[in-house]
């Protein structure tokens, strides 16, 4: 069973969102997503200062099986991207919620987080996808 930490928010496109104290969020892909993709060989992170809209493709994760877009779960401005992933994309596999983070976004609207799923709802989504 996938690891779905209860203190995070989730998008249906399998990104996780952690609320930081300063009005920013950290974004990565869920343990379920990294497991479905398999061993990552490349991650393209977004440019810093880029403005992104919720649902917009902003990063790419490429595994031996497939290349997939990562979508911005919220609208805002990219303020940081994980430079470590350039040489070590496997961090997303080994530590999806920690060192495998992809970007940090400054929110346009702090309430936007309310639109996202909590851990229970996300867990239900991936269970349904598994049985579907």
């Amino acid at each position, binding site marked *: 069973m996938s690891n779905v930490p209860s203190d995070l928010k989730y998008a249906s496109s399998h990104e996780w969102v952690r609320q930081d104290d300063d009005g920013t969020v950290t974004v990565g892909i869920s343990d379920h997503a990294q497991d479905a993709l398999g061993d990552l060989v490349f991650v393209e992170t977004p440019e810093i200062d880029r403005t992104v809209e919720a649902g917009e493709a902003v990063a790419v994760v490429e595994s031996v099986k497939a290349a997939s*877009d990562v979508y911005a779960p919220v609208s805002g401005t990219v303020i940081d991207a994980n430079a470590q992933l350039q040489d070590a994309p*496997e961090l997303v596999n080994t530590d999806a919620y920690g060192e495998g983070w992809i970007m940090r976004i400054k929110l346009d609207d702090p309430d936007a987080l309310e639109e996202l799923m909590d851990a229970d709802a996300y867990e239900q989504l991936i269970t349904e996808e598994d049985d579907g």
Partner: protein
Amino acid sequence: MSQESLIFDLGRSGRYARAQAPAEHADLADIPAEFRRKQRAVMPEVSELQVVRHYTRLSQKNFSIDTNFYPLGSCTMKYNPRACNSLAMLPGFLDRHPHAPDSTGQGFLGCLYNLQEMLAEVTGMKTVSLAPMAGAQGEFAGVAMIRAYHDARGDDGRTEIIVPDAAHGTNPATAVMCGYKVREIPTAADGDVDMAALQEAVGPQTAGIMLTNPSTVGVFERRIQEIATLVHEAGGLLYYDGANLNAILGKVRPGDMGFDVIHINLHKTFSTPHGGGGPGAGAIGVGERLLPHTPIPQVGEDNGQYYWRTEKDIPQTIGRLSAFGGNAGVLLRAYVYARMLGREGMTRVAEYSTLNANYLMTRLKAEGFQVWLPERRASHEFIISLKGEAKELGVTAGDFAKRLLDLGYHAPTAYFPLLVPECLLIEPTETETVDDLDGFVQAMVTIREEARHDKEFVKGAPYNMPVRRLDEVKAAKELDLKWQGEAS
């Protein structure tokens, strides 16, 4: 099978193949000194027999349609009739110089002209250009024409191309190469495009939509006319990706479905050699709206004389896509193939490729494999999901694919389309016999039995190939294709 050494490692100083050596030393006097080598080129020093054996052994390691069943989904690995090859190799074709005047190449130009006409008719388009030298270039040409159309009308607010999530990866790549943003729309549970999502996505910013029909989930898009009306009413155009044309050849025409431009993979549907990177041929079919932007060169006809049409004839063309006449040798093979099939033969291609796919799908389903979209009739290909096997037996689609190689079958396309977990996309084509299809079903059943008894055995496959299971992560991250032998 043992691993073949590099030809450099077979050599020993002083060995050479006399028959292939130049008769005398070439005179280098007229080559300026700065262009001459400072050091001798590093060449393998081998005997003629060593060369013959080396390359014969390598060719025997090839896994090809000439040796084995090759059900690689969305690739249409059908038999390439020998006649196409031998006729395209006639000396009149082979020895023709690309700069020779049109008047001395009327036979060659006539073949290409007639191929254009046949392709236009079977796809329902106004004209065809044979210039693009690969499917991806054909796609690029199509979307570049859509762009030229909007630009010519001063309609510059159209910034998006709509692409379904089941599309081939080249579709979004093409849209981006042509300067568009990609708007992805989901596939509905029944395998068709999600109409509600499409309605929401279409607007004044829509330049066009790229569709494959039958789609990459192996079913015919039933609401295609509704989609065409919706996109056209919003001012967008429709691009048809010809990857799956085999299923509908002679049965239904993309032009009649409402498409404005299509590309045809001649190396798939028209049976020219395919695999190992080419050479391909991505002929492009052009509808009424895009006629002024047809790519060049194109063969024209005037009073029974064939000639190359250029910028002079098509001033608003998107431009020249090949220096000469496209991949001429491939085009000639496609021409012979089309002529041998004739109108009725083309219809039989669609019928038998669809029959074979549905037969194989039904048999695999009866053996307990999970068919994706079981309620739909397959087109020329279909999907099975090995999610159940992965969960219960711990053996994935990738493991099945590797073990199939041992049993004499090329693996189907694995893990594509992305929206189906643990999937194999299987396309048997029309040229396989029922015995070969039954053999494949038996191989799948055998692998599942093996997995039940000894999962690790299947996970260790392949065993009978020149190489064992490769380290795919290392291959992707540390790609190294350069031979680094000692320089002499």
